[in-house]
C-alpha cells in the first residue's frame, strides 16, 4: 500500500506532473493526476481527450506533463490509448522493447460519460491493458459549465438553467461506474479526491490486473459547483459522507464498499454548500426536489449494499 511518504519519495525522485499548468486556483484535477502517477512505479504513457486538463496542461509550446502524453480529439482517448498499447505489444513481441510500460487515460466526465463513451466501451470490450481514470467534475467545465450526463439532478448549468420551466437539470445522472462494470473487466472502482490515499491504493490494486481498469473519481470544480476555491476537499468528503458518492470497488465481479459512513448525513448538507443548488433553498418547490434527490441517493446506496451482499468478496 503506497503511504503518503512513499508517494512523496517517488515525486522527489522524478516529478511527473509539474506546476505551471493553467488550471483554476483550487482545481482538484491535478491532485488526482499527481496521486495516480505517483502510485505507479513503472514508466507511464498518458492519453487525454479534450477537456480542462488537456487545454490547461498543454499550452504550446509548454507542457506540465513530464511523462509521454498524447491528445488527439474529444471522443477517442480510449481508442488512442488502445493504439499505443497495441503498438507497445508489437514492439515487445519483436524484441525491440523489454521494459514494462503502463498506459493511463485521464479524461473528464464529458470525454467519458458522453462523447468518449463508445471509444471507451470498445476499448474495454477489446481488453486492452490500460487504466482509465475519469476526473468526474459533473459538467463541461472547460467550455463554461454545460450539463453532461454526469451532472446531478437539479444542478444549475448553462444549458440547463434555473427558471420557471426547469429547476436546473431535470434528469438524474448516469451511473457510469455500473455501466463500465457491466463490461466484465477485471477492475472497476469509484474514488473521491477527498480520499487520495484510498485512490493510490486503488491504483496499486488495479495495476495487479492485466486488461482494462477503470476508476471514476469525483473531482470537485470550485468554478462550476460555485464553491469557495479552498473547499475542494471538504466538498468531495461531504459527497462521500452523505452517500451521494460511495467509495467502492468491483474486482473481478466482486463488490466491496470501501467506506460506509456510520451516520446518515442528509444529502441536503452537501447541496446547501454549493451555488449550483442554491435555488433549491430559495424556491418553494425546493423541499420536494431535495426529497427526490435524497430518495435517489438512498435507492442507489441500498442497491449497492445489496450488490455487496449478493456478489461481495465473501459471497
Amino acid at each position, binding site marked *: 500500500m503506497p503511504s*503518503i*511518504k512513499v*508517494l*512523496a*519519495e517517488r*515525486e*522527489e525522485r522524478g*516529478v511527473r*506532473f*509539474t*506546476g*505551471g*499548468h*493553467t*488550471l*483554476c*486556483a*483550487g*482545481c*482538484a*484535477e*491535478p*491532485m488526482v493526476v*499527481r*496521486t495516480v502517477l505517483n502510485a505507479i512505479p513503472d514508466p507511464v504513457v498518458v492519453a487525454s481527450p479534450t477537456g480542462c486538463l488537456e487545454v490547461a*496542461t*498543454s*499550452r*504550446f*509550446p*509548454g*507542457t*506540465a*506533463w*513530464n*511523462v*509521454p502524453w498524447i491528445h488527439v480529439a474529444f471522443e477517442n482517448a480510449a481508442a488512442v490509448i488502445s493504439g499505443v498499447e497495441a503498438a507497445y505489444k508489437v514492439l515487445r513481441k519483436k524484441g525491440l522493447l523489454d521494459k514494462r510500460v503502463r498506459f493511463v487515460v485521464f479524461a473528464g466526465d464529458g470525454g467519458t460519460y458522453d462523447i468518449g463513451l463508445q471509444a471507451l466501451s470498445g476499448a474495454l470490450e477489446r481488453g486492452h491493458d490500460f487504466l482509465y481514470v475519469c476526473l468526474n467534475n459533473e459538467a463541461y467545465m472547460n467550455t463554461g459549465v454545460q450539463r453532461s450526463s454526469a451532472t446531478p439532478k437539479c444542478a444549475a448549468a448553462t444549458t440547463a438553467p434555473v427558471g420557471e420551466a426547469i429547476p436546473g437539470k431535470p434528469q438524474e445522472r448516469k451511473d457510469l461506474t455500473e455501466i463500465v462494470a457491466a463490461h466484465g473487466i477485471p477492475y472497476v472502482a469509484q474514488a473521491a479526491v477527498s480520499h*487520495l490515499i484510498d485512490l493510490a491504493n486503488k491504483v496499486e490494486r488495479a495495476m495487479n490486473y492485466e486488461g482494462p481498469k477503470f476508476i471514476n473519481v469525483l473531482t470537485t470544480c470550485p468554478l462550476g459547483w460555485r464553491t469557495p*476555491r*479552498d*473547499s*475542494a*476537499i*471538504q466538498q468531495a468528503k461531504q459527497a462521500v459522507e452523505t452517500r451521494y458518492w460511495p467509495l467502492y470497488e468491483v474486482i473481478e465481479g466482486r463488490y466491496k464498499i470501501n467506506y460506509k459512513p456510520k451516520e446518515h448525513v442528509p444529502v441536503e448538507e452537501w447541496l446547501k454548500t454549493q451555488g449550483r443548488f442554491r435555488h433549491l433553498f430559495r424556491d418553494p418547490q425546493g423541499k420536494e426536489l431535495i426529497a427526490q434527490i435524497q430518495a435517489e441517493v438512498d435507492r442507489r446506496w441500498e442497491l449497492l449494499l445489496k450488490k455487496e451482499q449478493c456478489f461481495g468478496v465473501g459471497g
Partner: protein
Amino acid sequence: MAGLKGWRELPLGGVVAGGTARDLNKTGSWRAERPIWHEEKCIQCLQCWLHCPDDSVLIRGGKVTGFDYEHCKGCGVCAAICPKDAIEMVPERGGECARP
C-alpha cells in the same frame, strides 16, 4: 507578441519537451492571498503537499521546506487541509492594489 517563431522553427508534430510549463507559466502572479508556513506548528504530515494542485509545496527528504511562490496560485487548499493550522493565508502585498 514580437519574436514569434516561423513554421520551420516549430517542433515536428507538436512535440514539446516535458515539464516545460513550469518555466513558461509563472502562475504565482494569479495569487491574491499568500500561504505562510509556520514551521514550529508543522507536524510534517505532508497533507498540504499531497493536496496542492500546483505542485507548489516544496519537499526535501520527505519533509516540507516551504512554498514555490512562482507557481502557487494562492487557492488556500493547503491551509484548509492542514490539521495543525500551520499554514496561514495573508493578503498579497499587504492587501494593496498592484496598480495605483
